[in-house]
């Protein structure tokens, strides 16, 4: 299983039965494929729906049903449509309890950066709905690979990228570890099976302590 799917599957285990959840673009969207049996969540998408369903068949696809990534979705019984201002208002005002967001970097204060990197002297690509979610959703789960393609830790002491939200992340899920973000700093809760605390320290720039119940990531 590749890193993206490891992260997505582990994120799905963080969701709580009955809650309203927004899954961001990329890895978080994949988490929708790994919901544990029996877990029932109401999925929110920024473009304006609660309770949307999985990807349709090709012939069953309806071009007026899409998620925030522009991917085809379905509208099972119980789904509800709303307009855009209402949908983002729901995010700002706390009607969504958990969001899983991808990230370029996250730091030990729980600050998430996921909307801008430097290209040709400009910040790119843009914000979309992520900043509204970071502002108003009580439980932000950052889903990202532990190290970037140059081998640098994406779990930083302090991110220097423009933030999406400051001190908003509560849980960090990577392909190597799960951290809780607490007022006292990062707490390592799980490591990928076979990895020891020292292995995580070696690939993590951020400072962290180790949870009393530290154990292997369920895979």
């Amino acid at each position, binding site marked *: 299983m590749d890193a993206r799917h490891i992260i997505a599957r582990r994120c799905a285990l963080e969701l709580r039965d009955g809650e309203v959840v927004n899954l961001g673009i990329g890895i978080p969207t994949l988490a929708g494929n790994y919901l544990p049996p029996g877990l029932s969540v109401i999925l929110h998408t920024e473009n304006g729906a609660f309770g949307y369903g999985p990807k349709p068949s*090709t012939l069953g696809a309806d071009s007026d049903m*899409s998620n925030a990534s522009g991917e085809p979705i379905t509208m099972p019984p119980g789904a509800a449509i709303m307009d855009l201002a209402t949908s983002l208002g729901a995010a700002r005002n706390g009607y969504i309890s958990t969001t899983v967001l991808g990230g370029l970097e996250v730091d030990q204060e729980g600050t998430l950066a996921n909307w801008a990197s430097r290209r040709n002297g400009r*910040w790119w690509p843009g*914000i979309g709905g992520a*900043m509204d979610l970071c502002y108003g959703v009580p439980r932000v789960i950052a889903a990202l690979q532990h190290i970037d393609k140059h081998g640098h830790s994406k779990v930083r002491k302090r991110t220097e990228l*423009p933030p999406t939200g400051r001190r908003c992340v509560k849980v960090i899920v990577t392909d190597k570890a799960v951290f809780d973000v607490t007022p006292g700093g990062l707490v390592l809760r799980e490591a990928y099976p076979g990895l020891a605390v020292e292995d995580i320290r070696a690939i993590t720039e951020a400072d962290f302590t180790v949870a009393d119940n530290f154990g292997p990531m369920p895979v």
Partner: protein
Amino acid sequence: MSINKVMSLDDAMARVTPGTRLMMGEFVGHGEPAACIEWLIAHNVGDLTLITNTPGLRGASPMVGLFGAGLVRELIGTHGGTSAEASDAYLSGKMKIAQFFPMGTWAEKVRAGGVGLGGVLVPVGVGILDAEGLFPDLGTPKRTIELNGQSYFVEEALRAEVSIIKGWRADRLGNIEFRYTSTQNQRDLAMAGRYTIAEVNEIVEVGDIPPERVGCPGPFVNAVVQGYSLAEQHARGRELMIKLGRLPPLSDEEDS
């Protein structure tokens, strides 16, 4: 009794000329007024200021053609990178994006423009989006005010000379019905345009759209134009999703 807003694409789109400040419905390639966009590209109407949520969907949604053809001088929205065509225009300096707005902020700015407000007070992004040097093309710095102990951006209303929205069905009065997530903020965009064109899949008789299903009332619409039929729109959408690998090719599906 003789209100009839149905008109030809040519007659309606004549309102859009080089340099027009234009609003358009859209969300990552969905709910786009495809026929109107194709008209703009065919007539090479450029120098546009385009107020739209995101710049289309990479690959082939109609809107990306506006960026590919270099018709957009400035984009006012939430994102610059949902299509390669828009990214290239922005990163090469050919298209201006003075700042990115959080989507909720952008939606409220449009809504404010539609309902006669001067603007809105938005707490999202304070202390982030006003960082010095973040948006070098921004003329004046973002304004904040304090209210009841919280800081808010003062976000001005957005309005346009012409708005183009995309609906499902319309009658000759300009009443528009939307389908599912293509509802977006099409009604707010309609209200914020001085002249509003609604492209629809189907034009129906007055009374066919039940009053409670009218998503955008006729008084907010000046012109109704016939776009692609719903069947054509679905077929085009399917083709695009297959091309992007988001849906399996039909032959695969039939085999499985």
